[in-house]
């Protein structure tokens, strides 16, 4: 591991250790926060008991579906918008200010539009993730070397073939940025939607534990989400780095 890597580990480890000490010495009340080691133990027991399995599987499924839809849909929409420069100029301000909207202020509207349940949760995850992917696709397509686009013409490629066979791989470094953001946004969208408009899933389970003063379960689930997101991100970064090194970017 690099020097920076060690320092990073030290910062994270130090932070966790500090919280552990604050909790163990009682400077932070267990009603506010339980010690990280306690979270891990409770999570372990929770996973063993199988109590949370259904919620975990449901949330993972929701995130996976909304992520696949966001990434493929965002790429397709982005590629289409890129081919229509006038449309692009027209909607650019909306794309740029999209994430400035306080989405969950409109949750009654979501309920009216999508109803309650899984469909609604996935729809919100998708709405959250898709625009990051659209923006990344536009950004990536702007930077494709012109000579590669002309090469597509020499090989008589139509717009769809050129988008998939030349532009997509060429824009991959930018698309990765979009995917990373979409992962984060899909998790946020799905879990937040589960808080307010679902009766199952991790978001619901956390809200339920909170309302019933079940701090142990609540923190165990939060801990689970942090670990999960970290693992997903780490896997994706590793894959990205390996690919980029091979392609010499």
């Amino acid at each position, binding site marked *: 591991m690099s020097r920076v890597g060690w320092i990073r580990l030290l910062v994270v480890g130090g932070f966790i250790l500090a919280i552990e000490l604050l909790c163990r010495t009682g400077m932070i009340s267990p009603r506010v926060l339980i010690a990280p080691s306690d979270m891990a133990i409770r999570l372990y027991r929770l996973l063993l008991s199988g109590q949370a399995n259904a919620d975990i599987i449901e949330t993972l499924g929701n995130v996976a579906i909304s992520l696949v839809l966001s990434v493929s849909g965002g790429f397709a929409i982005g590629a289409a918008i890129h081919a229509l420069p006038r449309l692009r100029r027209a909607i650019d301000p909306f794309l740029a200010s999209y994430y400035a909207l306080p989405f969950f202020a409109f949750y009654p509207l979501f309920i009216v539009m999508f109803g309650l349940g899984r469909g609604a949760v996935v729809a919100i995850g998708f709405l959250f993730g898709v625009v990051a992917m659209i923006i990344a696709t536009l950004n990536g397509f702007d930077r494709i070397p012109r000579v590669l686009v002309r090469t597509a013409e020499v*090989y008589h490629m139509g717009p769809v073939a050129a988008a998939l066979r030349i532009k997509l791989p060429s824009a991959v470094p930018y698309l990765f940025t979009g995917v990373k953001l979409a992962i984060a946004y899909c998790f946020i969208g799905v879990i937040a939607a589960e808080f307010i408009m679902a009766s199952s899933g991790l978001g619901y389970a956390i809200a339920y534990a909170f309302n019933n003063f079940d701090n142990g379960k609540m923190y165990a689930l939060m801990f689970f989400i942090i670990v999960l997101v970290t693992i997903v991100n780490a896997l994706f970064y590793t894959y990205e780095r390996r690919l980029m090194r091979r392609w010499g970017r």
Partner: protein
Amino acid sequence: MNSAALQPAQSAHEPSKDVHAEMRGVTRVYGGDGKTGGVQALAATDLRLRRGEFYSVIGPSGCGKSTLLDVLAGLSRPTTGEVLFEGKSIDGRVPEGTGVVFQEDASFPWLTVADNIAFGLRRAGIDAAEIQRRLDYALKLMGLADFAKSYPSQLSGGMRQRVCIARTLVMQPRIILLDEPFGALDAQTRLIMGDELLKVWRETGATVVLITHALDEAAMLSDRIGIMSARPGKIIEEIKTQWPRDRDSRIAANPAFGEITARLWSVLRDESLKAIHQGNKSSAGLA
């Protein structure tokens, strides 16, 4: 002009079945609306390419060489005039049988050398055995056999350009258009690449159009050389070399090479001076 090696082209007297591609009064204006404004890159340009000849186009930078190649390839539409390939008018689409090699590196960084070269063949739905046969031939011809599984990022600039030439050549184009393909390479590599291009030309029998700004490259590789004027460019003179078909860069030792180069320069010098003064005028206008 009277030297045997320097006879001007007699294209007007050639039988038309020998004409492989042709530009008739082609102009190209960038931007502007209709008649006013815009940059005129090409003045009314005529060009007749004979089947199987090696033709170079030389001219000062910014004179419209790339524009000429784009229009000839069907990558961009002429503003006026007509481009014919094998007797048929092409209308802003690259005709089947045309191969193009660009000045910039156009290799696909996400594919191995072998996959790069086979790219067009796979798209054309050619059967696997034939793809393999052409791939092996091209890898060997371009000296890339040991790098089939490498990615372009692991290759030098010259090797990447060879990948692009191989990718073009496996399609068995009847005409190969190259826009300053060796522009980014060092002098020795350029000479070697020139020899390789001659080899490709001999083995495939294709018509080759090479855009270059290098006098020596044009003089040693070509059957004929078209010299372009300063912008708006058009071909103002054609020089015939009369080299044997079996030749390579060592032909530079031939006394005729010096004559041809000198002849090229005497025409090109004036045009280059004009091009430089054009640059001065426009920068004065901006200041």
